[in-house]
């Protein structure tokens, strides 16, 4: 189970690192225009999100690779993925046909995106649960 948990953590790390890379290799305006097209955040927030989100994804990816303080790191990853998934689901239900903004430009939001993001969220929840379970076991062992 521990090996599986490590694999899950590294898979999540790879996804966050790839997402960060695909955004950071392009000028931030590309991601800003994708966010803006969704009409989900106020105008003044779009630029801030476009500039900071890829760096946050990079940070999460690196922390997931390191694997320390996993309760916090995995919880943050789950929270981020939950926000992404909910936003994309709402947009899809509203009939939004633009880019999902997940891995750079060019991926249109559709059922495949939702299935993939849903699977990632499920994986992240499981990794988080494993992290909490392990820390609880470790605490009991210490007592």
């Amino acid at each position: 189970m521990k090996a599986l948990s490590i694999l899950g953590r590294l898979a999540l790390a790879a996804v966050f690192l790839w997402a960060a890379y695909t955004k950071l290799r392009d000028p931030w305006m590309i991601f800003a225009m994708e966010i803006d097209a969704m009409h989900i955040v106020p105008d003044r927030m779009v630029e801030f999100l476009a500039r900071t989100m890829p760096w946050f994804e990079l940070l999460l990816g690196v922390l997931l690779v390191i694997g320390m303080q996993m309760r916090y790191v995995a919880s943050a990853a789950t929270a981020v993925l939950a926000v992404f998934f909910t936003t994309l689901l709402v947009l899809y239900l509203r009939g939004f046909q633009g880019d999902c903004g997940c891995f750079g430009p060019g991926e249109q939001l559709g059922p495949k995106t939702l299935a993939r993001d849903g699977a990632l969220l499920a994986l992240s929840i499981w990794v988080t649960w494993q992290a909490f379970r392990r820390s609880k076991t470790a605490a009991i062992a210490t007592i």
Partner: protein
Amino acid sequence: MRLTNISILFAATALFATESADKSAGRPDAPVTLEVFSDFQCPHCAKLHFGALKEALGDCVASGRVRIVYRDFPLPQHQYARKAAQFADAATRLGWYERVCDALFRTQEEWERTGDIEGSVGKELTPAEIAKVHKILSDPKALAEINREIDADMALGAKIPLSETPTMIVSGGGKRYPIKGDVRYDWLKQLINSLPVK
């Protein structure tokens, strides 16, 4: 002095000729190209046309940094989009592309309801001008050529692949970015300025 005036006139005529002949605006050797795939019946295309694209025309196109190439991408769900594209392309042959584009987008809601493109656009063009466009569209050979041009634009869009309108392809300095929707000009300009000029 006279020679200079003639040169300026020639340069201006050349720019105008470029705009009218191939649905583009700006210097052909501009370092950045903005390819715009749009559908005359799409409301977001109208917003982009009167928003970021008009600002670009007055700014980075006028300064020679950008060339805009207009491409037709009439979506199948828009009943009159191809008819409108045919009308605009016929007007291109008369050197009125930009003007007719403005008229088509401005009266979009009207002809979308009635299907009467000539009637709606006719409020912005003279009867003589409408008659000239009509004459081109009545010529089966010219119409077939226009349809071929529209199909060629659509095939180009399908290759990208393009799923929605408006979509712009911004390219320059070896970089190429697809941009969807009616984007803000300030970001578009920043993106254009971030592209390396070779």
